[in-house]
């Protein structure tokens, strides 16, 4: 049985399910209901099968190598390499796609008669297939084709709600940033091709010694920009907060949960596998970028009151945290500390999985809220916990997981990341040590600020009184949406509780890297699933924390309810209102909640406040007719990076324009000059 599941045929079967799903949803696009059933059914079946397939691959430790050469395109080979890392990413893709598709089945219903459901199913299924292709491709050119397929299908999903002008411009920004990233990826592949003579990852890896050091550094920078754009590292993240709110919610979850992780996947593949050995500054650079992304991501999230943009900025933060694990893995390996490098890699992988789970949970529950409220603006919510109690609970669980509160999964991967960084502080010399201290500090503050941000997000959305009448009309989501969210919520807890066992699997995946053969991460799992690292430098047990919390809470409830006093009454009364009539406008808003943090970080966030008062009589300004206050923050990367970039490109274009004189003689001389230069360069 295992033989069949982990065979080549089975892998192609997996891809085929999604391709058939996308073709069939186009066939039945006339009928909304049928298209929804077909596309969801194939997506769910495919993901379920992908889940089984990847689990079997990981547990058996089998790797699949599928090569096919065609004579007409000698450089392009449709070859796949399914090692454990690829299998792990297929697992993450299938897991998230499964629950997003279950959720989507209920969610898509509100598009009926508005948009083409068949097209949605087509692009959705094709996108999942292309994600699987991206993480399994073993040839650079083939990889780029898969990468393009992924980008294009996701573009069409981002602009799916095309009647909204904002979505179109968000999609445009996404497309530009994707192509800028892809150009850098192509350049780095071409550079590698020039020196190794192949696009095949295995051959590049074997011949990596032929690549000069300076070229390798350039490849690193290009790959970091290219894949970093997809992953959403600062300052290449600007498409994320635009594209995530535009996409349908069940696809936002995939966008944030999986697609940005493909950037991380290729960084792992390139930096830890293909380009080894590498200089130390690569790792330290990744660490610094990770720290800045984490800290700035959470700070910008705090300024947001668009719930999906807030979540998008948290994706940037979490990508930063994953980069901290990756960066320390790179740095440690260059410093000849392979055990610690393996630990850093495990932390990065674990956080990749965890972030995929809790972020898709948060996007799905935010999607349910938006579906009922018809706006992304948190200031229009309030008190939704009474109208959507289950969604509120799932969002709460997601918030606790992303804020790294034990015993949910987010805590344990951050714990591993922290422990890796601690070892860097402990064992490294001066300059690298300070970079690790900086990274640890940014991770510590990120944790605190994320907690504040999710108190704000949950409080403003679900607690207190409704701020608009729309809230009182909100209804709980339908069953399939609740099932999708509920399963993910259970998973956040389960993956936390079994964090000990999971790290052993991550160690196994890490050991599949050729540089980590026969390396132990010095972490072990003891009694109570207690996970200990670095020869008992630290240890933690998820079940003990969970059981301890449950027992202590039950004890508190039982003692206060049944022993101390059984007679006391519970009276309902109005909130103390200082004698006025409290209404929804008097409670704290999302903007107000984070205002003090924004003001404290005013050096980075540059908040501004504008008062506009219109007077009845402009001459003597006593009686104001209307007044408005505009609070805003300005983006430093916009001011210091993108604006100078665009002005310099414009200036350069103006200069270049001068050579276009319109005189045909001049053009002929240009051709002549170009010919001579070409001849000389060939000779």
């Amino acid at each position, binding site marked *: 049985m295992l033989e069949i599941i982990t065979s080549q045929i089975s892998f192609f079967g997996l891809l085929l399910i999604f391709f058939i799903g996308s073709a069939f949803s186009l066939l039945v696009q006339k009928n909304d209901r049928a298209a929804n059933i077909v596309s969801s059914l194939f997506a769910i079946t495919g993901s379920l099968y992908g889940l089984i397939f990847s689990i079997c691959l990981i547990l058996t430790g089998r790797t699949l190598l599928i090569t096919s050469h065609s004579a007409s395109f000698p450089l392009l080979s449709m070859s796949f390499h399914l090692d454990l890392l690829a299998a792990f990413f297929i697992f993450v893709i299938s897991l998230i796609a499964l629950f997003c598709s279950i959720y989507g089945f209920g969610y898509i219903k509100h598009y009926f008669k508005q948009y083409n459901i068949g097209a949605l199913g087509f692009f959705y299924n094709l996108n999942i297939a292309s994600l699987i292709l991206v993480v399994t491709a073993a040839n650079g050119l083939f990889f780029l084709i898969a990468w393009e397929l992924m980008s294009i299908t996701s573009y069409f999903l981002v602009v799916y709600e095309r009647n909204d002008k904002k979505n179109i411009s968000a999609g445009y920004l996404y497309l530009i940033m994707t192509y800028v990233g892809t150009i850098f990826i192509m350049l780095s592949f071409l550079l590698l091709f020039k020196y190794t003579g192949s696009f095949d990852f295995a051959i590049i890896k074997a011949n990596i010694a032929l690549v000069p050091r300076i070229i390798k550094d350039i490849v690193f920078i290009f790959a970091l920009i290219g894949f970093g754009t997809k992953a959403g590292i600062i300052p290449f993240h600007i498409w994320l907060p635009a594209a995530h709110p535009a996409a349908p919610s069940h696809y936002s979850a995939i966008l944030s949960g999986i697609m940005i992780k493909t950037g991380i996947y290729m960084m792992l593949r390139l930096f830890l596998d293909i380009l080894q050995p590498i200089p130390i500054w690569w790792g330290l650079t990744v660490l610094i970028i990770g720290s800045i992304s984490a800290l700035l991501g959470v700070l910008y999230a705090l300024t947001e009151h668009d719930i999906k943009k807030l979540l998008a900025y948290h994706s940037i933060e979490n990508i930063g945290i994953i980069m901290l694990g990756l960066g320390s893995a790179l740095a440690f390996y260059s410093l000849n500390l392979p055990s610690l490098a393996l630990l850093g890699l495990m932390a990065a992988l674990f956080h990749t999985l965890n972030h995929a789970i809790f972020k898709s949970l948060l996007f799905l529950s935010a999607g349910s809220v938006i579906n009922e409220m018809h706006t992304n603006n948190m200031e229009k919510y309030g008190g939704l916990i009474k109208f959507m109690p289950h969604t509120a609970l799932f969002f709460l669980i997601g918030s606790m997981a992303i804020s790294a509160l034990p015993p949910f999964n987010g805590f344990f991967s951050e714990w591993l990341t922290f422990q890796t960084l601690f070892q860097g502080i402990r064992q490294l010399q001066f300059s690298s040590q300070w970079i690790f201290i900086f990274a640890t500090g940014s991770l510590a503050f990120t944790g605190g600020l994320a907690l504040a941000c999710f*108190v704000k997000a949950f409080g403003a959305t679900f607690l207190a009184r409704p701020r608009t009448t729309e809230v009182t009309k909100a209804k709980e989501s339908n069953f399939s949406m609740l099932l999708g969210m509920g399963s993910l919520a259970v998973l956040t807890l389960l993956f936390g509780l079994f964090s000990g066992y999971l790290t052993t699997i991550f160690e196994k995946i890490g050991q599949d890297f050729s540089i980590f053969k026969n390396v132990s991460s010095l972490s072990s799992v003891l009694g109570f699933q207690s996970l200990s690292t670095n020869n008992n430098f630290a240890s933690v047990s998820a079940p003990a924390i969970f059981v301890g919390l449950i027992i202590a809470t039950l004890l508190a409830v039982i003692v206060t309810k049944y022993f101390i006093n059984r007679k006391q009454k519970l009276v309902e009364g109005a909130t103390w209102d200082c004698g006025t009539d409290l209404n929804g406008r008097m409670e704290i808003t999302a903007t107000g909640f984070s205002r003090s943090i924004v003001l404290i970080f005013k050096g980075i966030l540059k908040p501004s406040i504008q008062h506009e008062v219109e007077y009845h009589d402009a001459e003597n300004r006593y009686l104001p007719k209307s007044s408005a206050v505009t609070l805003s923050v300005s983006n430093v990367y916009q001011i210091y990076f993108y604006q100078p970039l665009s002005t310099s490109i414009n200036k350069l274009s103006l200069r270049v324009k001068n050579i276009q004189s319109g005189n045909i003689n001049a053009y002929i001389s240009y051709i002549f000059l170009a010919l001579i230069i070409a001849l000389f360069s060939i000779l």
Partner: protein
Amino acid sequence: MNILSWIIQIIFVPLVSPLCIGIIKKTKAKFQNRQGANIFQPYKDLWKLFHKDEVISSEASWIFKFAPFIIFAVTILVGASIPLISPYIQNTLTSDLLVIVYLLSIGTFFLALAGMDTGSAFGGFGSSREMTVAALAEGGFIFSLLAIALVSGTTNLSAITSASMFNHSQSFLSVILAAIGFFIILLAETGRFPFDNPATHLELTMIHEAMILEYSGKRLALIEWASANKLVIFIALAVNIFFPFGVATSFATGAVIIGLGAFLIKILIMCLIIAILESGIAKLRFFRLPDLLAVSFILSVIAIGLIN
């Protein structure tokens, strides 16, 4: 003595915490030339609150009703996990420094949500201020403990405490700097001067009191008790992590009794320090607080830099 040590470990924090509040209040009263209430008054207050009827806002959801229990439970679990009188209770399950930091965050998280839940403007602003202070305190909190963890070679708090003070001697300066950094965090996290005034109900100044304004009866009792527990937890961390004098080094009866005595004396001294400080200094303006928290963080970073 093994079982007895365990029992003491679990019930010590909730048992002693009201007494600490009583001592601080009494000392402050003396400084203000007042007689002050009996030091056992907080126990009576709790007893009284537990037997009162409750009024709960009609706006409140289950978060508001459930929060006091989880906040209290967290302090019980943390109180049982940190090293108190005998670090020889080797706890490798829940005694990691990050576990303690993030477990306490659960309490902060639910307290802030409960503050927002009733829709009162006070509660919301209290939550906002609390989260601001908590977020900025996180760096100093982790780093001050980390400095000692690096000196002792483990992040397990009970293992840190059992490492003898004399092992630290070459890192003496680091320990002192980290201790000062931690003391600032103690004041911030437990809502003491100059961060918050635990005695006031004036809306301009309050943080903690603003969040719990709507609570009454047994839920108020639980929250008051939990915040007293939190104070003892932080005091215990301060005295046992940074100055582990006199902790019991074995399960022998004598050692445990000496450990208990030494610990009580250290707690008393810390309570007196806090009370004297509160009588002597004024509360800082809210936007001055980040500076103080930054001082704590920087002191801890310097402490880490000085190790080796």
